[in-house]
């Protein structure tokens, strides 16, 4: 029903080079893997090229430069580039095929590859390319200094760049089909990298779990895409987002469209680790820390959000007004439930990376809630004609996208900082306990002993030992908590406010709205708890007392990201929230200072009494109640004679004071059934395991029975039958010549009689 012609032509110098952003890492993948096989053990390869790390680095750098050129050109206005009017590069025909349409004719179809650039693309392109480069830098400091990785880092870097290729491809591609293809490439790399230490059974099973869980979502995504194809006759954005095509579909199959989008949303739930498909993400921390930082915190888990954000044109379409509000509610509700659940589980985690993993789930859930609310507003309000409504929708959608940006930056940094801590604790442990057996294959033993370098039990008081890491962690935590003026504050307040705005229209939304407000306090608690347990107080043991500063490869990205996170206030001032979602807004339109004043006024002195109070309640919960509780329980001075940077000193002193003044005994809670349930991840994994055992294993047993009984049985019956027949035949061969003569005589006689009888 829809034409697949792409008519938009845009004069752009760098758009034609955009495929290189994807292709360069893909080529680097093959090169690193091949060279790694050839040069393993070669000192030049190992020391100078860092086992491929220094091949990956310039490639990611080139991808970032090309991305930045494209972005700057986009911002400088090759500018019919608005949300619903995107730039589409000339498509490279990839597959020409024909689809039988049920009659006697066939419809010719061509699947081409094209580049699609709009505001969402530009934002995610920057996030992905920038973080890929930084985390690549971090990896060189993290992976290449650990002997356990010797001679297999090439595998890490190869899979790493392939992942980057998948992520950048997903962001840039111009159809849901290509989105799905790159989506699966990322899934594959995620699987391979979680199982990087495949000799550890826990890593191998975590990899399998991640792959299978996301695969469940992907099956639904695929069904959703097929349904979408059925409705539109194409999966190209240019076709499915076309207003006339949407109108055409809305006339008689709006319900089917809602189902298609809903099934696609299940795919997003799997990829972004939301309830009920969240079980894979905490286990995925078995992978090396750079992988956790890039794939399982900053980029791949955003793929699900990107997919949902891509559905916005459907929700915003006039023709579909009011038809998709149930789906918008489901999106927001899934987000709200996950936000609270993950935050609660994060309360009791001892593993540094697990805290961050649950925090990732919780924050992604915030973004889902934000998107769900924005979709609801876009779907119910008459925002195409009403200026006020237009503003509300744009700000709601923008807040969710801005939180995606802030969270990716902050969480990438937090994971790298946690990696830095783990790396140094690990080295300190190694230094103290394996002092004399250097050089005799110690690489094998130090991951097997009882010492857990990721447990916060083995840290404490590290603020003086690792000042840059501690600062990065502090800024990152503050951003995630939404402390006023820092990073995530700008976007999180927006999400909470919009959730409550929608709740006023539709009482169903009280669920997600309450969840995100409650989640703000919970985030404040678990992030502070993590920071104080790790960096404040006295070292918990001898090992933590001997931790040293980390190396430059690790410090550099932390340093850069600290500033990026802090500069979120500038992005807010430039009007990022409006720009990311509005097709008529330019970055920095109001001017930086004026924009900033506008944003501040809006955040702290809202003219609407309800939102005025809500803002301060949220700030109070997130910045006072949560951290205050954490300080009372876990705060403390550094050890005697330890000094830290001036900006961390007041935080630690405040925590020590609160701890002294308000400390209370929480052992009653720690021993309660709720705490036990949280430690066991609310038993969800166990229920899944049981369901698996009963359903899947039961089915497998039946299938195995059918195999051995029916199929094998038939073959065995044929075999034994022919054997017994042959033993009967064999008994006739006696080996005695006389018997043979008799047989010949009798046989001849018989033939003779036959002939005689016939004649």
């Amino acid at each position, binding site marked *: 029903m829809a034409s697949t012609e792409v008519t938009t032509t845009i004069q752009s110098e760098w758009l034609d080079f955009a495929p290189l952003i994807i292709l360069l890492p893909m080529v680097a993948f093959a090169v690193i893997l091949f060279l790694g096989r050839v040069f393993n053990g070669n000192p030049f390869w190992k020391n100078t090229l860092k086992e491929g790390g220094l091949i990956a680095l310039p490639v990611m750098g080139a991808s970032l430069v090309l991305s930045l050129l494209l972005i700057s050109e986009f911002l400088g206005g090759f500018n019919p580039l608005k949300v619903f009017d995107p730039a589409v590069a000339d498509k490279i025909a990839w597959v020409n095929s024909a689809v039988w349409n049920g009659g006697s004719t066939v419809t010719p179809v061509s699947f081409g590859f094209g580049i699609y650039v709009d505001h969402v693309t530009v934002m995610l392109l920057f996030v992905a390319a920038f973080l890929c480069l930084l985390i690549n830098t971090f990896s060189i400091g993290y992976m290449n200094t650990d002997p356990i990785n010797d001679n297999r880092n090439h595998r890490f870097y190869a899979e790493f760049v392939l992942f980057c290729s998948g992520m950048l491809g997903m962001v840039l591609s111009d159809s849901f089909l290509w989105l799905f293809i790159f989506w699966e490439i990322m899934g594959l790399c995620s699987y391979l990298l979680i199982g990087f230490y495949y000799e550890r059974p826990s890593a191998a099973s975590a990899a399998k779990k991640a792959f299978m869980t996301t695969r469940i979502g992907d099956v639904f995504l695929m069904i959703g895409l097929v349904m979408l194809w059925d409705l539109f006759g194409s999966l190209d954005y240019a076709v499915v987002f076309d207003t006339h095509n949407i109108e055409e579909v809305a006339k008689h199959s709006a319900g089917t469209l809602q189902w298609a989008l809903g099934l696609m949303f299940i795919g997003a739930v799997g990829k972004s680790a939301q309830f009920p498909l969240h079980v894979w993400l905490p286990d995925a921390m078995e992978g090396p820390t750079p992988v956790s930082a890039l794939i399982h915190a900053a980029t791949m888990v955003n793929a699900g959000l990107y997919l949902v954000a891509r559905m916005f044109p459907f929700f915003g379409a006039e023709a579909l007004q009011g038809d998709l509000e149930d789906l918008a509610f489901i999106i927001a509700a899934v987000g709200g439930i996950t936000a609270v659940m993950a935050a609660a589980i994060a309360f009791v985690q001892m593993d540094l990376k697990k805290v961050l993993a649950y925090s990732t789930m919780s924050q992604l859930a915030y973004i889902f809630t934000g998107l769900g609310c924005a979709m609801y507003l876009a779907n119910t309000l008459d925002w195409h004609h009403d200026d006020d409504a237009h503003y509300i929708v744009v700000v709601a959608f923008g807040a969710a996208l801005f939180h995606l940006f802030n969270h990716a930056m902050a969480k990438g940094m937090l994971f790298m900082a946690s990696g830095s801590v783990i790396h140094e604790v690990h080295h300190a442990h190694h230094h103290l306990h394996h002092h004399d057996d250097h050089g005799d294959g110690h690489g094998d033993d130090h991951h097997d002993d009882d010492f857990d370098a990721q447990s916060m039990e083995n840290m404490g008081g590290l603020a003086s030992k690792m000042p840059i890491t501690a600062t990065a962690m502090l800024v990152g935590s503050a951003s995630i908590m939404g402390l006023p003026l820092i990073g995530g504050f700008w976007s999180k307040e927006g999400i909470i406010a919009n959730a409550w705005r929608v709740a006023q229209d539709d009482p169903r939304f009280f669920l997600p709205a309450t969840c995100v407000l409650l989640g703000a306090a919970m985030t404040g608690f678990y992030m502070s708890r993590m920071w104080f347990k790790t960096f404040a107080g006295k070292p918990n043991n001898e090992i933590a007392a001997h931790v040293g500063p980390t190396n430059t490869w690790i410090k550099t990205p932390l340093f850069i990201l600290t500033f990026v996170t802090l500069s979120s206030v500038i992005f807010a001032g430039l009007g990022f929230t409006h720009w990311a979602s509005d097709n008529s807004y330019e970055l920095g339109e109001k001017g930086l200072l004026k924009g900033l004043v506008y944003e501040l006024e809006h955040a702290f002195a809202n003219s609407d009494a309800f939102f005025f109070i809500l803002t301060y309640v949220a700030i109070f919960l997130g910045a006072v109640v949560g951290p205050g509780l954490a300080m009372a329980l876990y705060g403390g001075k550094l050890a005697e004679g330890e000094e830290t940077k001036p900006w961390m000193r007041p935080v630690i002193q405040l925590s020590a004071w609160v701890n002294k003044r308000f400390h209370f005994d929480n052992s009653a809670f720690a021993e309660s059934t709720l705490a036990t349930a949280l430690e066991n991840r609310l038993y969800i994994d166990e229920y899944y395991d049981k369901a698996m055992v009963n359903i899947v294993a039961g089915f497998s047993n039946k299938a195995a029975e059918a195999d051995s009984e029916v199929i094998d049985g038939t073959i065995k019956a044929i075999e034994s039958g022919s054997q017994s027949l042959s033993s009967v035949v064999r008994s006739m*061969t*006696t*080996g*005695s*010549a006389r018997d043979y*003569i008799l047989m010949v005589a009798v046989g001849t006689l018989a033939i003779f009689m036959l002939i005689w009888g016939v004649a």
Partner: protein
Amino acid sequence: MIDPALVSALSALMFVIGLGGAFTRKNAIIVLMCIELMLNAANMQFAAAAVHHGDTTGWVYTLFAIAIAASEVAIGLAIFLAVYGQHETISLDDVDVLKN
């Protein structure tokens, strides 16, 4: 001239004697002699038939059969020698390697 029917009867008698001998004797050489006897019985039958029909074709067959029988005896004896080399006997009851 002898009645061909009598010759046929003699031939049948010789064949039966040969067959019986081939069934019952153990010694391979005797069995071979019995087979020769059966062949000669057949030759005799050919000759008798030739006389009876006044056709020389039967004579020709007889001559062929005698030549072939001679070479067959040579081969048979050579086989017995080889069997003796393997089994140190040519008693048919003891040579049964093809059993089952």
